[in-house]
Protein backbone atom coordinates (compact mmCIF):
# COMPACT_ATOMS: atom_id res chain seq x y z
CA UNK A 1 0.00 0.00 0.00
CA UNK A 2 1.41 3.32 -1.00
CA UNK A 3 0.62 5.14 2.24
CA UNK A 4 2.74 2.74 4.16
CA UNK A 5 5.75 3.65 2.13
CA UNK A 6 8.33 5.67 4.06
CA UNK A 7 8.29 8.45 1.47
CA UNK A 8 4.68 9.32 2.32
CA UNK A 9 5.50 9.73 5.97
CA UNK A 10 8.29 12.05 5.08
CA UNK A 11 5.92 14.16 3.06
CA UNK A 12 3.35 14.17 5.82
CA UNK A 13 5.82 15.24 8.49
CA UNK A 14 7.03 17.91 6.13
CA UNK A 15 3.49 19.30 5.92
CA UNK A 16 3.24 19.24 9.70
CA UNK A 17 6.53 21.07 9.91
CA UNK A 18 5.27 23.67 7.47
CA UNK A 19 2.15 24.16 9.54
CA UNK A 20 4.23 24.60 12.63
CA UNK A 21 6.48 27.12 10.92
CA UNK A 22 3.46 29.04 9.67
CA UNK A 23 1.95 29.09 13.15
CA UNK A 24 5.28 30.23 14.59
CA UNK A 25 5.57 32.98 12.00
CA UNK A 26 2.04 34.11 12.82
CA UNK A 27 2.92 34.39 16.50
CA UNK A 28 6.06 36.30 15.63
CA UNK A 29 4.06 38.59 13.36
CA UNK A 30 1.64 39.40 16.17
CA UNK A 31 4.52 40.03 18.53
CA UNK A 32 6.40 42.22 16.08
CA UNK A 33 3.28 44.23 15.30
CA UNK A 34 2.59 44.80 18.97
CA UNK A 35 6.19 45.76 19.48
CA UNK A 36 6.10 48.16 16.56
CA UNK A 37 2.91 49.75 17.83
CA UNK A 38 4.51 50.25 21.24
CA UNK A 39 7.64 51.73 19.68
CA UNK A 40 5.69 54.13 17.48
CA UNK A 41 3.52 55.23 20.38
CA UNK A 42 6.57 55.75 22.57
CA UNK A 43 8.41 57.58 19.77
CA UNK A 44 5.51 59.94 19.18
CA UNK A 45 5.43 60.82 22.88
CA UNK A 46 8.94 62.14 22.64
CA UNK A 47 7.96 65.13 20.49
CA UNK A 48 5.81 67.03 22.99
CA UNK A 49 8.32 66.23 25.74
CA UNK A 50 11.25 67.40 23.64
CA UNK A 51 9.42 70.61 22.80
CA UNK A 52 8.71 71.14 26.48
CA UNK A 53 12.35 70.61 27.37
CA UNK A 54 13.44 73.13 24.75
CA UNK A 55 10.86 75.67 25.90
CA UNK A 56 11.77 75.27 29.55
CA UNK A 57 15.49 75.64 28.91
CA UNK A 58 15.02 78.68 26.69
CA UNK A 59 12.81 80.55 29.11
CA UNK A 60 14.91 79.57 32.08
CA UNK A 61 17.94 81.12 30.41
CA UNK A 62 16.15 84.19 29.10
CA UNK A 63 13.81 85.13 31.93
CA UNK A 64 16.17 84.96 34.89
CA UNK A 65 17.80 88.28 35.74
CA UNK A 66 21.27 89.07 34.48
CA UNK A 67 22.31 90.98 31.41
CA UNK A 68 24.57 88.98 29.07
CA UNK A 69 25.73 92.15 27.32
CA UNK A 70 27.05 93.54 30.56
CA UNK A 71 28.72 90.23 31.30
CA UNK A 72 30.53 90.23 27.95
CA UNK A 73 31.52 93.88 27.66
CA UNK A 74 31.82 94.80 31.30
CA UNK A 75 30.05 97.59 33.14
CA UNK A 76 31.87 100.45 31.45
CA UNK A 77 31.13 99.63 27.83
CA UNK A 78 30.20 102.38 25.38
CA UNK A 79 26.50 102.57 24.47
CA UNK A 80 27.42 102.16 20.78
CA UNK A 81 29.22 98.90 21.45
CA UNK A 82 26.39 97.73 23.62
CA UNK A 83 23.85 98.45 20.92
CA UNK A 84 25.89 96.68 18.27
CA UNK A 85 26.28 93.60 20.45
CA UNK A 86 22.61 93.55 21.41
CA UNK A 87 21.71 93.58 17.74
CA UNK A 88 24.24 90.96 16.75
CA UNK A 89 22.95 88.67 19.50
CA UNK A 90 19.36 89.36 18.50
CA UNK A 91 18.46 90.42 22.02
CA UNK A 92 16.47 93.47 20.84
CA UNK A 93 13.84 91.22 19.26
CA UNK A 94 10.72 90.26 21.20
CA UNK A 95 11.16 87.14 23.32
CA UNK A 96 8.78 85.07 21.21
CA UNK A 97 10.65 85.94 18.03
CA UNK A 98 13.89 84.97 19.72
CA UNK A 99 12.29 81.70 20.71
CA UNK A 100 11.16 81.07 17.14
CA UNK A 101 14.67 81.70 15.81
CA UNK A 102 16.09 79.47 18.54
CA UNK A 103 13.78 76.59 17.64
CA UNK A 104 14.45 77.04 13.93
CA UNK A 105 18.18 76.84 14.58
CA UNK A 106 17.69 73.78 16.76
CA UNK A 107 15.92 71.98 13.94
CA UNK A 108 19.13 72.11 11.92
CA UNK A 109 21.21 71.14 14.98
CA UNK A 110 22.52 74.64 15.53
CA UNK A 111 22.94 75.42 19.24
CA UNK A 112 24.28 78.93 18.66
CA UNK A 113 27.81 80.18 19.18
CA UNK A 114 29.77 80.77 22.34
CA UNK A 115 29.96 84.35 23.64
CA UNK A 116 33.64 83.95 24.27
CA UNK A 117 35.41 81.81 21.74
CA UNK A 118 32.90 82.45 18.98
CA UNK A 119 32.92 78.77 18.03
CA UNK A 120 29.62 76.97 17.46
CA UNK A 121 28.45 75.26 20.64
CA UNK A 122 27.73 72.08 18.70
CA UNK A 123 31.37 71.91 17.63
CA UNK A 124 32.57 72.37 21.21
CA UNK A 125 30.26 69.61 22.41
CA UNK A 126 31.40 67.28 19.62
CA UNK A 127 34.99 67.92 20.63
CA UNK A 128 34.41 67.18 24.32
CA UNK A 129 31.89 64.37 24.03
CA UNK A 130 34.29 61.45 23.31
CA UNK A 131 36.17 61.99 26.58
CA UNK A 132 32.93 62.02 28.58
CA UNK A 133 31.52 59.01 26.73
CA UNK A 134 34.75 57.13 27.43
CA UNK A 135 34.59 58.09 31.11
CA UNK A 136 30.91 57.14 31.41
CA UNK A 137 31.51 53.83 29.61
CA UNK A 138 34.36 52.77 31.86
CA UNK A 139 32.38 53.99 34.90
CA UNK A 140 29.45 51.75 33.96
CA UNK A 141 31.86 48.85 33.48
CA UNK A 142 33.36 49.47 36.94
CA UNK A 143 29.92 49.81 38.47
CA UNK A 144 28.74 46.52 36.99
CA UNK A 145 31.87 44.67 38.00
CA UNK A 146 31.36 45.85 41.58
CA UNK A 147 27.57 45.67 41.73
CA UNK A 148 26.84 42.22 40.32
CA UNK A 149 28.93 40.17 42.78
CA UNK A 150 27.84 42.39 45.67
CA UNK A 151 24.16 42.15 44.81
CA UNK A 152 24.29 38.38 44.31
CA UNK A 153 26.30 37.92 47.50
CA UNK A 154 23.77 39.94 49.49
CA UNK A 155 20.76 38.15 48.02
CA UNK A 156 22.19 34.66 48.50
CA UNK A 157 22.86 35.43 52.16
CA UNK A 158 19.57 37.20 52.72
CA UNK A 159 19.23 38.68 56.25
CA UNK A 160 22.60 37.36 57.36
CA UNK A 161 25.58 39.51 58.25
CA UNK A 162 26.85 39.43 54.66
CA UNK A 163 23.58 40.93 53.49
CA UNK A 164 23.64 43.64 56.16
CA UNK A 165 27.25 44.45 55.35
CA UNK A 166 26.47 44.78 51.66
CA UNK A 167 23.42 46.93 52.36
CA UNK A 168 25.27 49.20 54.76
CA UNK A 169 28.09 49.51 52.28
CA UNK A 170 25.71 50.42 49.49
CA UNK A 171 23.97 53.02 51.64
CA UNK A 172 27.30 54.55 52.58
CA UNK A 173 28.35 54.59 48.96
CA UNK A 174 25.07 56.21 48.05
CA UNK A 175 25.61 58.96 50.60
CA UNK A 176 29.18 59.51 49.46
CA UNK A 177 29.41 62.56 47.21
CA UNK A 178 31.70 62.16 44.22
CA UNK A 179 33.38 65.47 45.00
CA UNK A 180 34.52 63.98 48.28
CA UNK A 181 35.42 60.49 47.08
CA UNK A 182 37.43 61.96 44.19
CA UNK A 183 39.79 64.11 46.29
CA UNK A 184 40.18 61.33 48.87
CA UNK A 185 41.16 58.87 46.13
CA UNK A 186 43.59 61.43 44.76
CA UNK A 187 45.13 61.90 48.19
CA UNK A 188 45.52 58.15 48.70
CA UNK A 189 46.49 56.84 45.27
CA UNK A 190 48.02 59.83 43.53
CA UNK A 191 49.68 61.84 46.29
CA UNK A 192 50.50 59.28 48.97
CA UNK A 193 51.27 56.11 47.00
CA UNK A 194 51.91 57.97 43.74
CA UNK A 195 50.46 55.12 41.70
CA UNK A 196 48.06 57.00 39.47
CA UNK A 197 48.01 60.45 37.86
CA UNK A 198 46.23 63.21 39.79
CA UNK A 199 44.19 64.65 36.95
CA UNK A 200 43.90 65.20 33.23
CA UNK A 201 43.81 62.58 30.50
CA UNK A 202 47.34 62.04 29.24
CA UNK A 203 48.08 58.49 30.34
CA UNK A 204 45.89 55.40 29.96
CA UNK A 205 45.77 55.01 33.73
CA UNK A 206 44.23 58.48 34.10
CA UNK A 207 40.82 56.95 33.56
CA UNK A 208 40.94 54.70 36.63
CA UNK A 209 40.28 57.20 39.42
CA UNK A 210 37.58 59.29 37.69
CA UNK A 211 35.76 56.24 36.38
CA UNK A 212 35.83 54.57 39.78
CA UNK A 213 34.54 57.76 41.42
CA UNK A 214 31.74 58.13 38.90
CA UNK A 215 30.79 54.47 38.97
CA UNK A 216 30.84 54.07 42.73
CA UNK A 217 27.44 55.54 43.61
CA UNK A 218 25.94 53.78 40.61
CA UNK A 219 27.31 50.44 41.78
CA UNK A 220 25.64 50.95 45.15
CA UNK A 221 22.28 51.58 43.60
CA UNK A 222 22.64 48.73 41.11
CA UNK A 223 23.71 46.27 43.78
CA UNK A 224 20.63 47.09 45.85
CA UNK A 225 18.38 46.72 42.86
CA UNK A 226 19.96 43.42 41.83
CA UNK A 227 19.56 42.12 45.37
CA UNK A 228 15.85 42.97 45.44
CA UNK A 229 15.16 41.54 42.01
CA UNK A 230 17.20 38.42 42.70
CA UNK A 231 15.30 37.83 45.95
CA UNK A 232 12.08 38.18 44.05
CA UNK A 233 13.04 35.68 41.39
CA UNK A 234 14.53 33.30 43.97
CA UNK A 235 11.12 33.14 45.64
CA UNK A 236 9.36 32.44 42.33
CA UNK A 237 7.77 29.18 41.26
CA UNK A 238 10.26 28.33 38.57
CA UNK A 239 13.14 28.38 41.01
CA UNK A 240 11.11 26.23 43.41
CA UNK A 241 10.46 23.81 40.54
CA UNK A 242 14.13 23.71 39.68
CA UNK A 243 14.97 23.01 43.31
CA UNK A 244 12.26 20.32 43.48
CA UNK A 245 13.76 18.66 40.42
CA UNK A 246 16.91 18.27 42.44
CA UNK A 247 19.03 21.19 41.32
CA UNK A 248 21.37 22.48 43.97
CA UNK A 249 20.73 25.93 45.42
CA UNK A 250 23.72 27.47 43.65
CA UNK A 251 22.83 25.86 40.36
CA UNK A 252 19.21 27.05 40.58
CA UNK A 253 20.34 30.58 41.31
CA UNK A 254 22.89 30.54 38.49
CA UNK A 255 20.68 28.90 35.90
CA UNK A 256 17.25 30.30 36.63
CA UNK A 257 17.09 33.14 39.14
CA UNK A 258 20.07 35.21 38.05
CA UNK A 259 19.07 35.46 34.40
CA UNK A 260 15.63 36.78 35.22
CA UNK A 261 16.93 39.09 37.90
CA UNK A 262 19.07 40.83 35.31
CA UNK A 263 15.98 42.18 33.50
CA UNK A 264 15.46 45.30 35.60
CA UNK A 265 19.20 45.88 35.55
CA UNK A 266 19.12 46.50 31.80
CA UNK A 267 16.76 49.43 32.13
CA UNK A 268 18.72 50.88 35.00
CA UNK A 269 21.95 50.76 33.02
CA UNK A 270 20.37 52.80 30.25
CA UNK A 271 18.80 55.27 32.64
CA UNK A 272 22.04 55.58 34.55
CA UNK A 273 24.00 56.17 31.37
CA UNK A 274 21.96 59.33 30.92
CA UNK A 275 22.26 60.33 34.55
CA UNK A 276 26.00 59.71 34.48
CA UNK A 277 26.38 62.68 32.15
CA UNK A 278 25.20 64.94 34.98
CA UNK A 279 27.28 63.11 37.54
CA UNK A 280 30.22 63.59 35.21
CA UNK A 281 29.97 67.35 35.67
CA UNK A 282 31.16 67.07 39.28
CA UNK A 283 33.60 64.21 38.69
CA UNK A 284 35.20 65.96 35.74
CA UNK A 285 35.52 69.13 37.79
CA UNK A 286 37.42 67.17 40.46
CA UNK A 287 39.81 65.45 38.05
CA UNK A 288 40.07 68.19 35.38
CA UNK A 289 38.87 65.59 32.91
CA UNK A 290 38.58 67.34 29.54
CA UNK A 291 34.98 66.35 28.82
CA UNK A 292 31.51 67.79 28.54
CA UNK A 293 31.29 68.40 32.30
CA UNK A 294 34.40 70.58 32.33
CA UNK A 295 32.97 72.46 29.37
CA UNK A 296 29.88 73.29 31.44
CA UNK A 297 31.93 74.26 34.48
CA UNK A 298 34.13 76.52 32.37
CA UNK A 299 31.04 78.08 30.80
CA UNK A 300 29.53 78.58 34.28
CA UNK A 301 32.60 80.48 35.39
CA UNK A 302 32.43 82.76 32.35
CA UNK A 303 28.61 83.06 32.32
CA UNK A 304 28.71 81.88 28.72
CA UNK A 305 24.94 81.53 28.33
CA UNK A 306 24.77 79.91 24.86
CA UNK A 307 27.25 77.24 25.90
CA UNK A 308 25.42 76.51 29.16
CA UNK A 309 22.11 76.40 27.35
CA UNK A 310 23.50 74.19 24.60
CA UNK A 311 25.13 71.72 26.97
CA UNK A 312 22.04 71.51 29.19
CA UNK A 313 19.85 70.86 26.16
CA UNK A 314 22.28 68.30 24.81
CA UNK A 315 22.43 66.37 28.08
CA UNK A 316 18.65 66.53 28.46
CA UNK A 317 18.25 65.10 24.97
CA UNK A 318 20.73 62.30 25.58
CA UNK A 319 18.89 61.53 28.80
CA UNK A 320 15.57 61.47 26.98
CA UNK A 321 17.01 59.19 24.32
CA UNK A 322 18.36 56.84 26.97
CA UNK A 323 14.97 56.72 28.69
CA UNK A 324 13.40 55.90 25.33
CA UNK A 325 15.98 53.19 24.65
CA UNK A 326 15.52 51.68 28.09
CA UNK A 327 11.76 51.51 27.55
CA UNK A 328 12.24 49.87 24.18
CA UNK A 329 14.81 47.37 25.35
CA UNK A 330 12.56 46.50 28.25
CA UNK A 331 9.64 45.98 25.89
CA UNK A 332 11.81 43.73 23.77
CA UNK A 333 12.80 41.61 26.73
CA UNK A 334 9.63 41.71 28.76
CA UNK A 335 6.58 40.92 26.64
CA UNK A 336 4.11 41.98 29.33
CA UNK A 337 4.87 45.65 28.86
CA UNK A 338 4.21 45.91 25.15
CA UNK A 339 0.65 44.64 25.44
CA UNK A 340 -0.17 47.71 27.44
CA UNK A 341 -0.25 46.17 30.91
CA UNK A 342 1.82 48.98 32.23
CA UNK A 343 0.22 49.18 35.67
CA UNK A 344 2.00 48.23 38.91
Amino acid at each position, binding site marked *: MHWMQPKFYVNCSFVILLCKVAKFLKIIKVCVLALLAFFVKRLLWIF*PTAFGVVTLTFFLVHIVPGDPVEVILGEHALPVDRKRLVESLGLHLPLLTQFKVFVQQLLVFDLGTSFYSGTPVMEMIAMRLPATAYLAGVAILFAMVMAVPLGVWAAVHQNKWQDRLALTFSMLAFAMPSFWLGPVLIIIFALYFQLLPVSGNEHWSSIILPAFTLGFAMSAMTARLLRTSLLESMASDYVKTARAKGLSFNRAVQRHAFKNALLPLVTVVFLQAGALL*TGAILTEAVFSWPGLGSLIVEA*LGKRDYPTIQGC*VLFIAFVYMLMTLLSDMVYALIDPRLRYGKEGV
Partner: protein
Amino acid sequence: MLSAFAKMFRMPWFLFAFVVAILMVTAVVWKGDPYTIALDNMLSPPSADYLLGTDELGRDLLTRLMSGATLSVYVGFCVLMLAGVIGTVVGVVSGWFGGWVDMLLMRVTDIFLSFPGVLIAICFAALTAPDVKNVIFALGLMGWVSFARLARVQTMAVKKQEYIQAARLSGVSGFVIVLFYVLPNIAAPLIVESVFTIAGAMLSEAGLSFLGIGVQPPEASLGAMLREGARYMLMAPHLVVVPGVTLMLLVFTLNLVGDKLRDKLDKANLQK
Protein backbone atom coordinates in the same frame (compact mmCIF):
# COMPACT_ATOMS: atom_id res chain seq x y z
CA MET B 1 28.93 47.66 74.31
CA LEU B 2 28.67 46.09 70.90
CA SER B 3 25.03 45.19 71.36
CA ALA B 4 24.30 48.73 72.48
CA PHE B 5 25.82 49.96 69.24
CA ALA B 6 23.84 47.42 67.30
CA LYS B 7 20.66 48.61 68.98
CA MET B 8 21.51 52.20 68.23
CA PHE B 9 22.01 51.22 64.66
CA ARG B 10 18.50 49.88 64.53
CA MET B 11 17.11 53.21 65.64
CA PRO B 12 18.23 55.55 62.91
CA TRP B 13 16.23 58.47 64.26
CA PHE B 14 18.41 58.22 67.28
CA LEU B 15 21.50 58.07 65.11
CA PHE B 16 20.52 61.18 63.22
CA ALA B 17 19.67 62.99 66.41
CA PHE B 18 23.00 61.78 67.80
CA VAL B 19 24.96 63.26 64.92
CA VAL B 20 23.08 66.54 65.08
CA ALA B 21 23.40 66.62 68.88
CA ILE B 22 27.16 66.14 68.69
CA LEU B 23 27.36 69.01 66.24
CA MET B 24 25.20 71.23 68.44
CA VAL B 25 26.95 70.41 71.69
CA THR B 26 30.33 71.08 70.14
CA ALA B 27 28.92 74.29 68.73
CA VAL B 28 27.86 75.43 72.20
CA VAL B 29 31.00 74.28 73.98
CA TRP B 30 33.28 75.47 71.23
CA LYS B 31 32.43 79.12 71.05
CA GLY B 32 34.36 79.92 67.95
CA ASP B 33 33.61 82.26 65.12
CA PRO B 34 33.60 80.68 61.67
CA TYR B 35 34.73 83.92 60.06
CA THR B 36 37.70 84.94 62.22
CA ILE B 37 40.76 84.97 60.00
CA ALA B 38 44.17 84.21 61.52
CA LEU B 39 46.75 84.23 58.78
CA ASP B 40 49.57 83.17 61.11
CA ASN B 41 47.69 79.92 61.69
CA MET B 42 47.11 78.81 58.13
CA LEU B 43 46.44 75.12 57.40
CA SER B 44 47.50 74.02 60.84
CA PRO B 45 46.82 70.38 61.73
CA PRO B 46 44.37 69.40 64.50
CA SER B 47 45.56 70.60 67.90
CA ALA B 48 44.21 71.47 71.34
CA ASP B 49 43.41 75.02 70.26
CA TYR B 50 41.85 74.00 66.98
CA LEU B 51 40.26 70.59 67.45
CA LEU B 52 40.08 69.95 63.71
CA GLY B 53 42.82 72.31 62.60
CA THR B 54 42.43 75.43 60.50
CA ASP B 55 41.76 76.17 56.86
CA GLU B 56 43.74 78.17 54.31
CA LEU B 57 42.86 81.47 55.99
CA GLY B 58 43.49 80.22 59.50
CA ARG B 59 39.79 79.93 60.32
CA ASP B 60 38.80 77.27 62.80
CA LEU B 61 37.62 74.23 60.83
CA LEU B 62 35.34 72.90 63.56
CA THR B 63 33.20 76.01 63.83
CA ARG B 64 33.08 76.33 60.06
CA LEU B 65 32.06 72.69 59.86
CA MET B 66 29.20 73.21 62.27
CA SER B 67 28.01 76.35 60.59
CA GLY B 68 28.21 74.54 57.25
CA ALA B 69 26.33 71.50 58.52
CA THR B 70 23.61 73.73 59.99
CA LEU B 71 23.26 75.49 56.67
CA SER B 72 23.09 72.14 54.93
CA VAL B 73 20.24 70.91 57.13
CA TYR B 74 18.51 74.30 56.78
CA VAL B 75 18.70 74.11 52.98
CA GLY B 76 17.42 70.55 53.13
CA PHE B 77 14.33 71.53 55.11
CA CYS B 78 13.62 74.62 53.00
CA VAL B 79 13.83 72.61 49.80
CA LEU B 80 11.49 70.07 51.35
CA MET B 81 8.98 72.80 52.19
CA LEU B 82 9.07 74.17 48.67
CA ALA B 83 9.18 70.90 46.77
CA GLY B 84 6.77 69.15 49.11
CA VAL B 85 4.09 71.83 48.90
CA ILE B 86 4.30 72.32 45.13
CA GLY B 87 4.57 68.62 44.43
CA THR B 88 1.74 67.58 46.74
CA VAL B 89 -0.61 70.25 45.40
CA VAL B 90 0.15 69.34 41.78
CA GLY B 91 -0.11 65.63 42.47
CA VAL B 92 -3.34 65.79 44.48
CA VAL B 93 -5.02 68.13 41.97
CA SER B 94 -3.90 65.90 39.13
CA GLY B 95 -5.07 62.72 40.79
CA TRP B 96 -8.31 64.15 42.15
CA PHE B 97 -9.60 65.83 39.01
CA GLY B 98 -8.21 63.41 36.43
CA GLY B 99 -9.10 64.00 32.80
CA TRP B 100 -7.39 66.82 30.93
CA VAL B 101 -6.07 68.48 34.11
CA ASP B 102 -4.24 65.28 34.96
CA MET B 103 -3.04 64.93 31.39
CA LEU B 104 -1.68 68.47 31.27
CA LEU B 105 0.00 68.38 34.67
CA MET B 106 1.56 65.00 33.99
CA ARG B 107 3.04 66.23 30.70
CA VAL B 108 4.63 69.13 32.56
CA THR B 109 5.95 66.66 35.13
CA ASP B 110 7.32 64.50 32.31
CA ILE B 111 9.20 67.47 30.94
CA PHE B 112 10.83 68.11 34.29
CA LEU B 113 11.59 64.40 34.57
CA SER B 114 13.46 64.52 31.26
CA PHE B 115 16.12 66.60 32.92
CA PRO B 116 18.47 64.33 34.76
CA GLY B 117 19.11 65.01 38.44
CA VAL B 118 20.65 68.33 39.31
CA LEU B 119 21.04 69.57 35.74
CA ILE B 120 18.11 71.95 35.93
CA ALA B 121 19.28 73.16 39.33
CA ILE B 122 22.76 73.77 37.93
CA CYS B 123 21.25 75.69 35.03
CA PHE B 124 19.09 77.83 37.32
CA ALA B 125 21.74 78.42 39.96
CA ALA B 126 24.28 79.33 37.30
CA LEU B 127 22.05 81.97 35.78
CA THR B 128 20.97 83.70 38.99
CA ALA B 129 23.05 85.38 41.63
CA PRO B 130 24.73 82.67 43.70
CA ASP B 131 23.26 82.68 47.20
CA VAL B 132 21.35 80.40 49.56
CA LYS B 133 17.91 81.60 48.46
CA ASN B 134 18.52 80.81 44.83
CA VAL B 135 20.04 77.44 45.67
CA ILE B 136 16.90 76.53 47.61
CA PHE B 137 14.72 77.71 44.76
CA ALA B 138 16.79 75.82 42.19
CA LEU B 139 16.63 72.57 44.15
CA GLY B 140 12.93 73.03 44.86
CA LEU B 141 12.36 73.49 41.15
CA MET B 142 13.79 70.07 40.58
CA GLY B 143 12.53 68.23 43.67
CA TRP B 144 8.76 68.66 43.38
CA VAL B 145 8.41 66.13 40.56
CA SER B 146 8.78 63.01 42.67
CA PHE B 147 6.24 64.36 45.19
CA ALA B 148 3.80 65.11 42.40
CA ARG B 149 4.00 61.62 40.94
CA LEU B 150 3.71 59.97 44.31
CA ALA B 151 0.80 62.15 45.47
CA ARG B 152 -1.03 61.58 42.18
CA VAL B 153 -0.82 57.79 42.31
CA GLN B 154 -1.82 57.74 45.97
CA THR B 155 -4.73 60.14 45.44
CA MET B 156 -6.00 58.04 42.57
CA ALA B 157 -5.92 54.97 44.78
CA VAL B 158 -7.60 56.69 47.74
CA LYS B 159 -10.24 58.29 45.51
CA LYS B 160 -11.78 54.90 44.82
CA GLN B 161 -12.16 54.03 48.51
CA GLU B 162 -15.60 53.71 50.02
CA TYR B 163 -15.11 56.33 52.72
CA ILE B 164 -14.56 58.97 50.05
CA GLN B 165 -17.78 57.95 48.34
CA ALA B 166 -19.55 58.00 51.69
CA ALA B 167 -18.27 61.50 52.35
CA ARG B 168 -19.39 62.62 48.93
CA LEU B 169 -22.84 61.14 49.41
CA SER B 170 -23.25 62.95 52.70
CA GLY B 171 -22.61 66.19 50.89
CA VAL B 172 -19.09 67.08 51.95
CA SER B 173 -17.54 69.49 49.48
CA GLY B 174 -14.63 68.36 47.30
CA PHE B 175 -12.16 70.74 48.89
CA VAL B 176 -12.93 69.48 52.39
CA ILE B 177 -12.69 65.87 51.22
CA VAL B 178 -9.26 66.49 49.75
CA LEU B 179 -8.08 68.33 52.83
CA PHE B 180 -9.45 66.05 55.55
CA TYR B 181 -9.94 62.67 53.89
CA VAL B 182 -7.40 62.39 51.08
CA LEU B 183 -4.38 64.18 52.48
CA PRO B 184 -4.12 62.28 55.79
CA ASN B 185 -4.46 59.00 53.93
CA ILE B 186 -1.71 59.70 51.41
CA ALA B 187 0.62 61.22 53.99
CA ALA B 188 2.67 58.12 54.85
CA PRO B 189 4.55 57.65 51.56
CA LEU B 190 4.98 61.40 51.24
CA ILE B 191 6.64 61.56 54.64
CA VAL B 192 9.04 58.80 53.61
CA GLU B 193 9.76 60.65 50.40
CA SER B 194 10.43 63.87 52.26
CA VAL B 195 13.20 62.27 54.31
CA PHE B 196 14.95 61.24 51.10
CA THR B 197 14.30 64.69 49.64
CA ILE B 198 16.12 66.35 52.53
CA ALA B 199 19.07 64.00 52.10
CA GLY B 200 19.13 64.55 48.34
CA ALA B 201 18.86 68.32 48.71
CA MET B 202 21.78 68.37 51.15
CA LEU B 203 23.94 66.45 48.68
CA SER B 204 22.85 68.66 45.78
CA GLU B 205 23.47 71.85 47.72
CA ALA B 206 26.98 70.67 48.47
CA GLY B 207 27.41 69.80 44.80
CA LEU B 208 26.31 73.24 43.64
CA SER B 209 28.52 74.93 46.20
CA PHE B 210 31.39 72.70 45.10
CA LEU B 211 30.92 73.93 41.54
CA GLY B 212 31.03 77.49 42.86
CA ILE B 213 27.44 78.34 41.97
CA GLY B 214 25.91 77.72 45.38
CA VAL B 215 26.67 79.31 48.71
CA GLN B 216 29.45 81.85 48.34
CA PRO B 217 32.44 82.42 50.61
CA PRO B 218 32.99 83.55 53.29
CA GLU B 219 29.79 81.76 54.32
CA ALA B 220 30.58 78.20 55.31
CA SER B 221 28.97 75.40 53.35
CA LEU B 222 30.14 71.81 53.29
CA GLY B 223 30.41 71.88 49.50
CA ALA B 224 32.27 75.18 49.40
CA MET B 225 34.64 73.92 52.11
CA LEU B 226 35.37 70.86 49.99
CA ARG B 227 36.00 73.12 47.01
CA GLU B 228 38.46 75.26 48.92
CA GLY B 229 40.01 72.28 50.66
CA ALA B 230 40.65 70.43 47.40
CA ARG B 231 43.26 73.05 46.53
CA TYR B 232 45.33 72.17 49.60
CA MET B 233 44.98 68.41 49.38
CA LEU B 234 48.68 67.79 49.62
CA MET B 235 49.40 70.01 52.63
CA ALA B 236 46.19 69.60 54.61
CA PRO B 237 44.18 66.53 53.66
CA HIS B 238 41.90 67.02 56.68
CA LEU B 239 40.36 70.01 54.94
CA VAL B 240 38.85 67.62 52.41
CA VAL B 241 38.26 64.58 54.56
CA VAL B 242 36.39 66.20 57.45
CA PRO B 243 33.60 68.12 55.65
CA GLY B 244 33.03 65.16 53.36
CA VAL B 245 32.69 62.71 56.23
CA THR B 246 30.27 65.06 58.00
CA LEU B 247 28.10 65.38 54.92
CA MET B 248 28.23 61.65 54.33
CA LEU B 249 27.25 60.90 57.91
CA LEU B 250 24.29 63.27 57.77
CA VAL B 251 23.04 61.91 54.46
CA PHE B 252 23.68 58.33 55.47
CA THR B 253 21.71 58.60 58.71
CA LEU B 254 18.89 60.39 56.94
CA ASN B 255 18.72 57.61 54.36
CA LEU B 256 18.65 55.06 57.17
CA VAL B 257 15.78 56.96 58.76
CA GLY B 258 13.96 56.94 55.45
CA ASP B 259 14.49 53.23 54.95
CA LYS B 260 13.26 52.30 58.42
CA LEU B 261 10.33 54.66 58.13
CA ARG B 262 9.36 53.08 54.85
CA ASP B 263 9.48 49.61 56.36
CA LYS B 264 7.32 50.71 59.30
CA LEU B 265 4.77 52.66 57.29
CA ASP B 266 4.55 50.03 54.57
CA LYS B 267 3.86 47.45 57.22
CA ALA B 268 1.15 49.66 58.66
CA ASN B 269 -0.34 50.02 55.19
CA LEU B 270 -0.27 46.28 54.63
CA GLN B 271 -2.02 45.58 57.91
CA LYS B 272 -4.85 47.91 56.92
